[in-house]
């Protein structure tokens, strides 16, 4: 229900806040904090990416065709896979296959269930809903995936002696790598669980804030936020589970030998 007129932000307003950011970067440089270059690059990237995505969304909303929506979701997933892989410092055999399958399956299933069966989009590809909802699910799953993959790879690497000792005793690779798997799964879920626990007290979540700002009734915004958080948690858990389950197998041969 729209209750209030939306307050529009003009170019001058944006210039003022961007100026504040540049001032902060300038102060950081003055004090030699050493992060000013990264801050500047990140702020320019954010500016360019958001302007670009704004125009892309405008075009997609205008086209209003399923293929256009699916195409942008595919691009989002591909970028998420690439960014997840890039964040993993340790070597993981077949990492693109492992991360790709997990993100496509985990995000795909949860987005479909949420948008079709719960929200009941009509048409099913309604870009105004599907793209931002899928974006939140993919974004959070990407964070969980990179934590799961990185932790799994580093744990397997650090626990080589432990794993090989277990293998020597006749344990299967699954049993031998169990502590590494549990640790990776825990690491993947920490940000989502922390975020759920602090939500509403420490901060107001982005989607809910956005809906309230655009005039939606607060309790309806809350219902949407609870629903999306549940779906995000399911997606992060499912994606991370697939990554550790498929990922751990990639470290071993079919003869339960730990690859070098």
């Amino acid at each position: 229900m729209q209750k209030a007129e939306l307050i529009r932000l003009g170019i001058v307003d944006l210039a003022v806040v961007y100026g504040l950011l540049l001032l902060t970067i300038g102060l950081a440089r003055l004090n030699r904090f050493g992060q000013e270059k990264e801050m500047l690059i990140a702020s320019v990237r954010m500016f360019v990416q958001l302007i670009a995505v704004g125009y892309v969304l405008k075009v997609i909303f205008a086209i209003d065709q399923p293929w256009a929506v699916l195409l942008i979701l595919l691009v989002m997933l591909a970028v998420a896979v690439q960014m997840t892989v890039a964040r993993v410092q340790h070597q993981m055999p077949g990492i693109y296959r492992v991360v790709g399958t997990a993100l496509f399956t985990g995000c795909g299933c949860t987005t479909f269930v949420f948008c079709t069966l719960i929200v009941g989009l009509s048409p099913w590809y309604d870009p105004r809903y599907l793209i931002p909802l899928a974006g939140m699910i993919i974004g959070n799953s990407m964070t969980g995936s990179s934590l799961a993959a990185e932790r799994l790879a580093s744990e397997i690497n650090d626990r080589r002696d432990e794993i090989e000792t277990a293998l020597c005793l006749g344990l299967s690779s699954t049993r031998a790598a169990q502590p590494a798997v549990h640790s990776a799964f825990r690491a993947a879920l920490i940000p989502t669980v922390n975020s759920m626990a602090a939500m509403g007290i420490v901060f107001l979540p982005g989607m809910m804030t956005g809906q309230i700002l655009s005039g939606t009734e607060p309790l309806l915004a809350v219902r949407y936020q609870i629903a999306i958080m549940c779906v995000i948690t399911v997606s992060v858990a499912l994606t991370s589970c697939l990554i550790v389950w498929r990922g751990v197998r990639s470290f071993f041969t079919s003869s339960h030998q730990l690859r070098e």
Partner: protein
Amino acid sequence: MIMAPPAMVEIDAVCKQRSRADGCQVAILDRVDLQINPAEVIALIGPSGAGKSTFLRLLNRLDDVDAGEIRWFGQPHSSIDPLLLRRQVGLVAQKPFMFPGTVRENLMIPLADRKEPLPEGGELDELLAVCGAERDWLDQPARKLSVGQQQRVCLARALLNRPRLLLLDEPTSALDPETAGLVLERLTAMFRGSDAALLMVSHDHRLARRFADRILVLRDGRIVEENRGGRAEG
């Protein structure tokens, strides 16, 4: 015509290579031949980097051979379930590894999958005595033990699988000479009196001569010398 039963282990022209940091392949083992029979105690000696640990890893199938063949009671290694094989061919690494928990929990690890209880009473006492371990250690945190004590717990843990062949990589490197002698005395006596065999890597030529039936010298990936040990000489 009665066929002779196959040896416990037959190793035929086994080769193993490793990749160096620069990507080049370097031979670790080069056409190694060996036969191991039940109730034998064999010592494998040689300089560092000769391929001794790699050889043990191949027998336990932690690694696969690049060329040649290993047969276990006449059956090719590759055709045997590796988990089953590793219970029959135990390997105790040079660096002891204790899992989190007590010594008792560590000893339970090989048995837990098969849902077997830890033997109690005389059987456990006997096993601990062979390894030079003590019953008082059972409820202590395993990682708090000294390296020498951990080595003995590792030995006991491997023996709980009742291996037909036990591979030991420097099993007594952290023990004082007296304890090392005592442990090897009991261990070799146990294997000689059974249908199981023992293959141990050692840097200590004196211990190897004292306890082994056969001493193999591995150098540059090949068995270059085979001598009879003190036991075989009587």
